[in-house]
């Protein structure tokens, strides 16, 4: 009996081993095809999916496998795998919030060097985006710009009509605040607001200008006039009762879009896809898009693609990156699929930018975004952007919730930030 079991076991082991071998040889048969993994986060994967068939047709020797995880998980697992140096994807999609961190710490291929020579594409790609993908010290390109996202103001067309306001007259924050007052006065109840959250005023202003949290020497500038104004305006909106105190990405936030309880929402152009596709599809035709007040032209979102140093198929990874970032067709394909705005200048001449959108009552929003995108200054990135975002955001809460003095809050924040820059 025992020996029979032994034989049985041995046979099973052989079968399993053989199946592994066969599996292996099946891959070997299609020997010329290299499979590369591309790690991405939503909704970038929709963009990639939309262009993969074309890519596979043009590059039959490469097969792309997408690996998708949600925003935070994606970047965290990317870091873990790069630190461990194993199981890294061949192409890593990195969002703007993380890019300063990633390009300044190593772990990725230098795309300016041989065999990539990415610098030859520098003139083809929107300037500020290129700067963000380079390492501060060496000036080498680490992360190739994939898409940008101009900041923009989504507003309720129908509400403006009710108030008899003309979008062309709304040029400054003061104009918007005045209109917000009118809107709030249309009802007794507390359910008519200018913005969902006063913090979005700060979110908009902090991204403006040539520097965000740090200057070129890496010194924090969070007590500068920009931040004081951002805090003052947020506070004004809150104190006048012009915001609903509703955090983003909550059910209550979505319902402000559905019910038109807010006049406007500043965000990246990508938010349009979310509103249209799932947040409030039934509000089609009620939306309009305008440039941000006070002539602010800012980048709000966007992402990059990079090759980890430990990637197995760097050559094919680079072919894929070149295809998606330096060709008009895939850049436009991603834009159509998921509002992933091109970073390739040549793509801006595409006819898609002349088409009006039904969702925005026939407004040609893409041309507006394109025009805004061209005016975004070169904003620097810093490895401590992440920490600064948390600390200054917390200081804003102190001001909005606990009436802390603005200058005091910013000075405290700077002290905290300097402490953490170690």
């Amino acid at each position, binding site marked *: *009996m*025992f*020996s029979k*079991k*032994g*034989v049985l076991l*041995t046979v099973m082991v052989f079968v399993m081993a053989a199946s592994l071998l066969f599996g292996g040889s099946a891959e070997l048969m299609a020997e010329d095809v290299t499979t590369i993994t591309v790690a991405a986060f939503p909704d970038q994967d929709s963009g990639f999916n939309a262009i993969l068939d074309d890519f596979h047709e043009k590059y039959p020797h490469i097969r792309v496998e997408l690996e998708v995880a949600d925003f*935070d998980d994606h970047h*965290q697992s990317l*870091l*873990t795998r*790069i*630190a461990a140096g194993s199981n890294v994807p061949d192409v890593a999609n990195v969002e703007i919030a993380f890019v300063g*961190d990633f390009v300044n*710490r*190593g*772990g990725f291929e230098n795309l300016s060097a041989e065999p990539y020579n990415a610098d030859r594409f520098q003139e083809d790609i929107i300037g500020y985006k290129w700067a963000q993908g380079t390492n501060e010290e060496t000036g080498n390109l680490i992360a190739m710009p994939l898409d940008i996202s101009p900041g923009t103001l989504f507003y309720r067309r129908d509400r403006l009509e009710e108030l008899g306001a003309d979008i062309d007259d709304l040029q400054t924050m003061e104009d918007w605040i005045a209109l917000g007052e009118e809107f709030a006065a249309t009802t007794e109840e507390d*359910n008519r607001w200018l913005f969902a959250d006063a913090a979005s005023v700060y979110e908009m202003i902090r991204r403006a200008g040539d520097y965000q949290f740090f200057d070129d020497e890496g010194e924090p500038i969070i007590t500068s006039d920009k931040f004081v104004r951002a805090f003052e305006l947020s506070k004004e909106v809150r104190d006048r009762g012009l915001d609903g*105190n*509703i*955090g983003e990405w*909550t*059910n*209550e936030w979505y*319902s402000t879009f559905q019910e038109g309880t807010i006049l406007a929402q500043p965000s990246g152009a990508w938010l349009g896809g979310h509103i249209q596709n799932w947040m409030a599809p039934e509000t089609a035709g009620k939306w309009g898009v305008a440039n941000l007040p006070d002539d602010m032209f800012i980048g709000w979102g966007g992402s990059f693609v990079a090759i980890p140093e430990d990637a197995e198929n760097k050559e094919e990874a680079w072919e894929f990156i070149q295809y998606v970032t330096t060709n008009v067709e895939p850049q436009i394909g991603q834009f159509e699929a998921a509002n992933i705005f091109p970073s390739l200048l040549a793509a801006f001449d595409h006819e898609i930018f002349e088409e009006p959108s039904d969702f925005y009552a026939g407004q040609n929003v893409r041309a507006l975004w394109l025009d805004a995108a061209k005016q975004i200054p070169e904003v620097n990135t810093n490895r401590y952007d*992440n*920490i600064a975002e*948390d600390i200054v*955001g*917390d200081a804003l*809460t*102190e001001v909005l*919730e*606990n009436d802390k003095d603005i200058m005091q809050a910013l000075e405290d924040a700077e002290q*905290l930030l300097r*402490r*953490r820059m*170690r």
Partner: protein
Amino acid sequence: MKSNNNSGISDKFRLNKKVAPYVFISPFFILFLIFGLFPILYSFFLSFNSWDGIGQMSFVGLDNYAYILTDGWFWDSVQTTVIIFVLTTIPQHVFALTLAFILNSSYVKFKDFFRTSYFLPYITSAVAIALIFDVLLGTRSGLLNAFLIWMQQLPPIEFLFQTFQFDLPARWLGEPRLIRFSIAGLVTWRFTGWNMLIYFAGLQTIPRSLYEAARVDGASIRQVFTKITLPLLKPVIFFGVTMSIIGNLQLFQEPFVLVGGAGGTGRAGMTTAMYLFRTGFHWRQFGEGSAMAYVLCIFIIILSLVNKKLFSGGGLNEL
């Protein structure tokens, strides 16, 4: 099929009787070494280094500890943790003990049904919980606020709300002072059933004869509970509270799903475990994060020892 068939392949692989037991229990230890012991030791090593997760590590001695012990946000997080700990641990055990006592009494039918129901939150997935509590605790669309607003129509309730300056609709997940109550409520809801099961098991070890003797002597339910049940349950309470200390001081998942990784408004929901996670994995300061983990561990040990002092002794053994 004869006995000499036993020799052959299988004999070669037959294990020595002295070795065999160790081989059989080895899977646990191998997994424990990789996923348990190694991370514990490695994070201890990390807590003396500065490391961003990618670049070179550099030894900094006790700098990380000095840094976090003088870090305002760290102490804020400790305060948040302790407040939530108190707000949830006390109701958890009071409810659990009461429910267990009622379920153990002879008055209740469908005991299994109730036991299962109370335990259900413990095994529900965090994502489902987050969705449900979002619906419950929403400011304008939340069920809890709708209920409270309806209750407010009653004059005594309205008076109560006015005295405490409790404005409706309440921002359960938006206002700093309420965030902690919301989190504590969720944790209590989730773990009361688990504690109840422990107490229920403990109650069943108390001999019936003691209760019968008490009844013969004419003791009331209250007397039975305070004079028999509670003293005999002391070791079980000790165990339950210790588990709560360990679990609730490391609170992470529940606040994370309710208010997000940044800890919500004013970091009111940022527990120490969340803060160390943010420091390590979001800010890439793994050394500081590891040091926090060890400081937190020391706090847990201290509290557990205090707890042992309070609850040691008692139980059936001392009868």
